[in-house]
């Protein structure tokens, strides 16, 4: 066993590495402009105030960015879960020839670098009139999460005993009904896990959001906050407040669903 001091060092390294950047942003968000312009800098805010939070919401439509991020993440998660459920069921429960090949293709196709697809996606979305709408992001985000969600769901579907499904079908269920009434409810933890991973992926995406939805009204949080900067200045205290607002929903999500996230990552982790 570790001796006490070494144990404390290990804990300190882990906690500082994990929390210091977020903590620093939190501290910055409570500092005033004047305090921020002091050198040497202060570590703890001298007159903590919520002024930056008021500015974060009034200087830019932060609430709108929050709503955009939430809508895009939620809708793309639902779409990817729908597509992944079908694919995972077909791959695990039906007699498919070339099962391995289909799975590999599915993953291969979704692993294309977004920057490669950026140019044609821009033109396709423009052609469909989807630039600066949720649709422009929902569709590609659903595809990016498709492999992870399919792998996670497939691993849960495999654990549902075939007998339960067969019994349901003897009672007159069709295969599709068996999927939606028996297999899917029994795999609820898997659906949650896949859903959280898809949601976080969508919440975090930046490149496509920047290229396809740059209009002020349709920005998601990362794009919106990065473009907070004025012509010449980068208002750090206000940006810090906006970052805190953007990180809190994510932090709540991962605190509540820690175990799910970790199990999902190790089943089909496709995010760095």
């Amino acid at each position, binding site marked *: 066993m*570790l001796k006490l001091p070494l*144990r404390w060092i*290990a*804990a300190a*390294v*882990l906690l500082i*590495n*994990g*929390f210091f*950047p977020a903590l620093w942003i939190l501290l*910055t968000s409570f500092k005033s402009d004047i305090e*921020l312009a002091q050198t*040497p*800098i202060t570590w703890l805010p001298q007159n903590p105030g919520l002024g930056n939070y008021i500015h974060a919401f009034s200087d830019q439509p932060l609430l709108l960015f929050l709503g955009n991020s939430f809508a895009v993440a939620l809708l793309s998660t639902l779409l990817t879960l*729908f597509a992944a459920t*079908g*694919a995972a*069921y*077909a791959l695990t429960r*039906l*007699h498919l020839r070339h099962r*391995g090949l*289909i799975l*590999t293709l599915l*993953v*291969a*196709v*979704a*692993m*294309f*670098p977004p*920057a*490669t*697809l*950026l*140019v*044609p996606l821009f*033109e*396709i979305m423009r052609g469909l009139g989807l630039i600066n709408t949720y649709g422009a992001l929902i*569709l590609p985000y659903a*595809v990016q999460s498709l492999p992870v969600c399919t792998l996670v769901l497939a691993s849960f579907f495999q654990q549902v005993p075939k007998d339960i499904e067969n019994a349901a079908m003897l009672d007159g269920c069709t*295969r599709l009904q068996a999927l939606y009434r028996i297999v899917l409810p029994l795999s609820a933890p898997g659906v949650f896990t896949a859903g959280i991973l898809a949601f*976080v992926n969508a919440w*975090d995406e*930046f*490149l496509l959001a*920047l*290229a396809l939805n740059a209009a002020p009204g349709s920005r998601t949080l990362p794009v919106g906050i990065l473009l907070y900067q004025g012509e010449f200045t980068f208002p*750090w205290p206000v940006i810090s407040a906006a*970052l805190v607002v*953007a*990180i809190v929903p994510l932090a709540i999500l*991962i*605190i509540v669903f*820690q175990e799910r996230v*970790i199990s999902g*990552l190790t089943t089909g*982790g496709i*995010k*760095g």
Partner: protein
Amino acid sequence: MSVRTLFSRQQDGLRNRLGDISEASLAFWLLLPATLLLGLIVVYPVAKVIHDSLYSISLFSESGPVFIGLANYADALRDPDVWRAVRFTLALCIVTVPGALLVGLVLALLANREWKWRWPVRLALLLPWALPLAFSGMIFAWFFNTEYGVVNDLLRRAGFAPISFLLIPQWGFLAICIATIWKTSSFVALILLAGLQTIPRSLYEAAELEGASRWQIFRHVTLPLLVPALMVALIFRTISALQSFDIPYAMTQGGPARYTETLSILINTTAIEYMDVGYGSALAVLLFVLSMAASSLYLRKLYKGTL
């Protein structure tokens, strides 16, 4: 073989065959949404990007696309901007991939101790993982700020002169590497932690009984058993490092003087900002070839079922 089992086998065969017909069409319908999505968002765009790379297409010019063969590729090979972006992207890979694996391994080994409170330790790994890359970039840009950054504050306290990290190419590279390693090592740690937890305790006990030292146990028990998890982390990290965009863009926007421009940033600038679609497409194909080299490793493992 009794008549009864033979009969039931026949019946099974019959049901299977009938089942197969309906199963085939069911499989078709179940795979259809995924197929349509992939077709619209990946297959068609890839065909289009390859096609467009052979044309001169500028959304600013009045004339339509002009077929120019491989001229875009020839231009790209002569373009110093492209070579600089490729070199910078590869340098980023060479530093941040081993860096993230090493830091991630240390974090995983620390987190794998028996902790009285497990959730803060877990959260310390999950928070950096969940944090958007663009936010990490912004936060580290703030850390490395010349006047008000915490890094320069520490340097000052230690008696050094402050450094304009994001305005000097080499320091900018270092800052971007540190931000990237911090952000991505938590993902590596989570993958490795899961790998560590599958190693049976009995192996460690046996090694201790044999009188092996801590280092020997790590070197001959832990590390070899961790190789599969390390491989997964290595492949994922390499693929995403080749596509680096968010962190460099958020920290330096490719500056100073385009020194920290990655291939992805260059593609975005060329195709979206300058609307040079043909040339941007050729660059996109170049990036695709680079990253396919890394993903094919993963896909081969997946296909062979070794993952």
